[in-house]
């Protein structure tokens, strides 16, 4: 378990570096993907406990805050809240439903911008549409890397996976 969290910490740090140094330079479009938000949601979706979902998501958000310009703690708290929500939702919904992960990413992105718009009083909400689209584009790729990096087998599909059968 400790090894899993160590790997997760390294993965979050690497992704934060990618988000602030390489992605802004090589991504030619104006709106860049929020890799840390995608990762936080992936962690929450795969978490075995509430703490295991919220705390890594909070740390990922806090890393964003450290390198960002405004509202220290905003991303941390919001990602922790989103992670709690996603963890809760995944207990009631069918995890294997087609497109549920995309729905979660869109929901988290929208929530991020709704709270930001309310707090700042500026219409940032318009930015959430392109960002949600870009985040969805990056989700399958990042999920693959996440599964590989954290050495977790793919989610069991009702016992048909050979590791779960």
């Amino acid at each position, binding site marked *: 378990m400790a090894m899993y969290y160590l790997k997760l910490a390294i993965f979050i740090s690497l992704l934060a*570096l990618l988000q602030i*140094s*390489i992605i802004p*330079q090589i991504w030619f479009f104006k709106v860049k993907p929020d890799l840390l938000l995608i990762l936080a949601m992936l962690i929450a979706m795969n978490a075995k406990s*509430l703490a295991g979902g919220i705390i890594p998501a909070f740390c990922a958000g806090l890393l964003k*805050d450290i390198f960002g*310009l*405004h509202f220290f703690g905003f991303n941390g708290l919001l990602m922790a809240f989103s992670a709690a929500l996603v963890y809760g939702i995944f207990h009631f919904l069918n995890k294997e439903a087609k497109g549920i992960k995309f729905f979660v990413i869109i929901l988290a992105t929208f929530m991020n*911008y709704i709270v930001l718009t309310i707090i700042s009083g500026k219409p940032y909400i318009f930015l959430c549409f392109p960002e949600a689209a870009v985040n969805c584009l990056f989700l399958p790729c990042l999920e693959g890397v996440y599964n590989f990096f954290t050495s977790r087998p793919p989610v069991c599909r009702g016992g048909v996976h050979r590791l779960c059968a």
Partner: protein
Amino acid sequence: MLKINRYKYSPAAVVFFTIIGIFILSLLLKSKIIDLISFPLKISSNWTSDIRALVAYKFIADENVRLNAQLAGAANDAIAFDELRQENERLKKLLSLKKEPSFVTVAAEVIARDPNNWSTGVIIDKGQRQGIKAGNAVIAASGLSGRITEVYSYTAKIMLLGDTDSSVSAIIQRTREEGLISGTISGAVQMRYLDKDSDVAIGDVIMTSGLTRNYPAGLPIGMVIKVKDDPQGLGKYCLVRPFVDSRSVEEVLVITGSK
């Protein structure tokens, strides 16, 4: 026999106190984390620049040919400009005007960019140790870039002109009309609070007026690309294309004082 009571905490309490703990710790160690991470960031920044240069090789080669041709044409202008500058200095001396101050600057390299889509900022590899202070104006090769908002020992954060919280008092070079340059949500730059009968036109150059603290007067900001009426009908505002592209800024000069 000594009995140790074992308290069982609810998961929610554990999460709450862990979050509070991490938050306080990161608040205290924020500057150390940024300084610590500046070294790998600098390496990755150089590496990315090299890759980009390789990818854009053909474009850069074409641009080089075009710029060489422009440079040849500009040589005559430079001679004429130098002549005018010398004449200006002579005349100023004759009139005993105070010599315009020249700036003390610190050159810095951009090592990281804001992770959010809703704010526009960069992190540079120079900080307090090099004499940089919060509020210092930042310029790039072609004009004003932004201002320092946070300073750490070896790094500093810059809020670029396109950020929604950025505002600088400015004048239109041709008409000398004053206004306020600020960022928009889309990252563009606009000049607001112009008169309803303002003579502003597309192509006008915008410069700092010197009214905002720490921003010296006369720094070029950008060029007017669109003029619009204010939604309230009280005045005009114009969209400005900054001379410094916030997405591609790589080296900057921080104005730390004047000679």
